[in-house]
């Protein structure tokens, strides 16, 4: 059983002198699903579980755990591995300070047993060096799109505007979407700046649209499609579709294959001296 193996590996890791803790998943108290957990003693590894409801992104916790001493063990499924690759590439996580345990995943399941929305079109990072694995870490053969997929691209501008207005009208601006995101690690955040206050905290339609547009743009090219933002949204706003629109746009404009699958710098974080864009040319 992969879960038993995961516990063995975690216990072995926590027995190391330099081990700080191990990040994985545990059952919810009422048994209705799982959540992220941090285990620091080998005796506690029996809390760890691995199954098809382990939605939480384990890696998002790493930059927040703080501290510099010791090594943190972390269980990663495919999407977590993409996030980890991005965090390492962008200098947020020191590769030497994490012990990465790869967990092969053939797709998470929604409560009704269907393949999770986020898992469609999943790609594992290529050439990622796991320290240990529970099995071969290969991209599972999964359908590219959910059967009931909404195609925003085929809508007219007016239809799209109506769609997003309805989505954002439900938003309660708790901003859990940005705080759950693995890529939201900036020590100074545009949404939190009070002087100047760039983004109004009012909750009218323009303010909500602005918040979501800025959030999506800040993640353009860095979103690894784990859909954690959509999962935690209490209002069910389809942030997954917004992020995907940005991912598709970046792919079409720059030929970028997506964050986390390679070590190529995301286009919006990069520049080149012979940039054909007139914006770059016009500068002296």
């Amino acid at each position, binding site marked *: 059983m992969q879960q038993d193996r995961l516990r063995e590996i975690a216990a072995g890791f926590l027995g190391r002198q330099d081990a700080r803790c191990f990040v994985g998943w545990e059952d919810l108290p009422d048994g209705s699903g799982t959540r*992220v957990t941090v285990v620091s003693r080998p005796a506690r590894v029996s809390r760890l579980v691995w199954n098809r409801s382990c939605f939480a992104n384990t890696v998002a916790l790493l930059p927040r755990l703080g501290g510099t001493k010791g090594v943190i063990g972390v269980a990663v499924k495919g999407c977590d591995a993409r996030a980890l690759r991005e965090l390492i590439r962008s200098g947020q996580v020191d590769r030497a300070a994490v012990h990465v345990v790869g967990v092969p995943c053939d797709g998470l399941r929604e409560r009704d047993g269907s393949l999770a929305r986020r898992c469609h079109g999943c790609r594992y990072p290529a050439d990622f060096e796991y320290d240990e694995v529970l099995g071969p870490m290969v991209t599972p053969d999964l359908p590219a799109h959910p059967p009931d997929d909404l195609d925003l691209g085929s809508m007219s501008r007016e239809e799209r505007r109506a769609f997003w207005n309805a989505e954002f009208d439900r938003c309660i601006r*708790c901003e*859990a979407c940005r705080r759950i995101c693995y890529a939201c690690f900036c020590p100074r955040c545009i949404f939190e700046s009070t002087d100047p206050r760039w983004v109004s905290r009012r909750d009218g339609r323009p303010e909500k649209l602005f918040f979501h547009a800025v959030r999506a743009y800040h993640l353009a090219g860095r979103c690894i499609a784990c859909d954690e933002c959509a999962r935690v949204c209490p209002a069910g706003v389809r942030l997954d579709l917004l992020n995907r629109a940005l991912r598709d746009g970046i792919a079409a404009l720059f030929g970028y294959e997506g964050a986390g699958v390679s070590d190529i710098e995301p286009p919006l974080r990069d520049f080149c001296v012979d940039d054909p864009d007139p914006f770059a040319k016009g500068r002296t």
Partner: protein
Amino acid sequence: MTSMFLERGLLEEAAVLLARTAEVWAPVDEPGLDAPSFGRPGEGLPLAIGPRLPLLPLKTLFLPRVEELFRFAGGAEGPVVVAADVPERERVVLGALACDIRSLELLDRVLLAEPADERYRQRRERTTLLALACTGESPACFCTSLNIDPLRPSGADGLLSPTGEGWLVEALTGKGRDLFERLEPLLRPATAAEIEAAGALASISRAAVSLDPPPGGWDRVWELATWEETATRCIACGICTVLCPTCHCFDVQDEKRGSGGARFRVWDTCMSQQFTQMAHGMNPRPLHFSRVRQRFLHKLVYFAERYGAIACVGCGRCARRCPNATGIDEIAARLRADLEEDGNA
């Protein structure tokens, strides 16, 4: 007074009738949401009167997320300040549940203490609360552990008890009696069977949860090493504070354009670092775990010391919506266990 009955099919009509003289609010089903939200009946969304918790608690109708306080403008004669009015119209809330109603009683202790929050006070006075006897939202809620009777909420002006093909209606206060007088054309006397059925109404059995201090009190809870461990799972998203019926902290902000603008207040969250960020740069709660500790000790200890009750109504919204499913019940149990273990060590 004869017990009266409202047929299920007349509910929408009752809302319309009340709307002639008052602003009516009720849980409605909004597409895309997996819980009802408070809305205005008759604006196209179906009423959701039932034992289902609205996503945002009742506090939104009394302490709105964003509320303008006044507008200001520069003028030749000097600055002009115009206070924002609280609409004077009477309001009726249909179908509020006991947990949410109890939260208003807790908020009253803060916001109606002198000097009272004038805007909150006016809204409270002008609102009639027509409660729904709650037969159970989910096994995860635990209002009964906090001495709340979901079937007969205290603090409500009137009560709708579901039975048969409608609701037995009862006035609990003078405000409630006024309301039912206005509804009279739609009500009929209840039958003996309906009265009996409403009397026999039972709520689902809920988990017994204790938020009370351990035998030795909460004294040593501040120092527990386990806060840091408890806090690791928390991503500081703040959903728990937004959705908590008893959280009431707000920030006051000015927005200026040209020589004019507005001052408004907006819900704040103690889970954010900015919450205690001082202008001179110091932050008394610089660490994440110290903010998590503050949130839970505020509910369990400080509010109880200052206002005589635990600031929780057992609705379970925190556990249900937390990205890592950690609710106040679990935290309290953990703290108690740790204190006992600590004491025995």
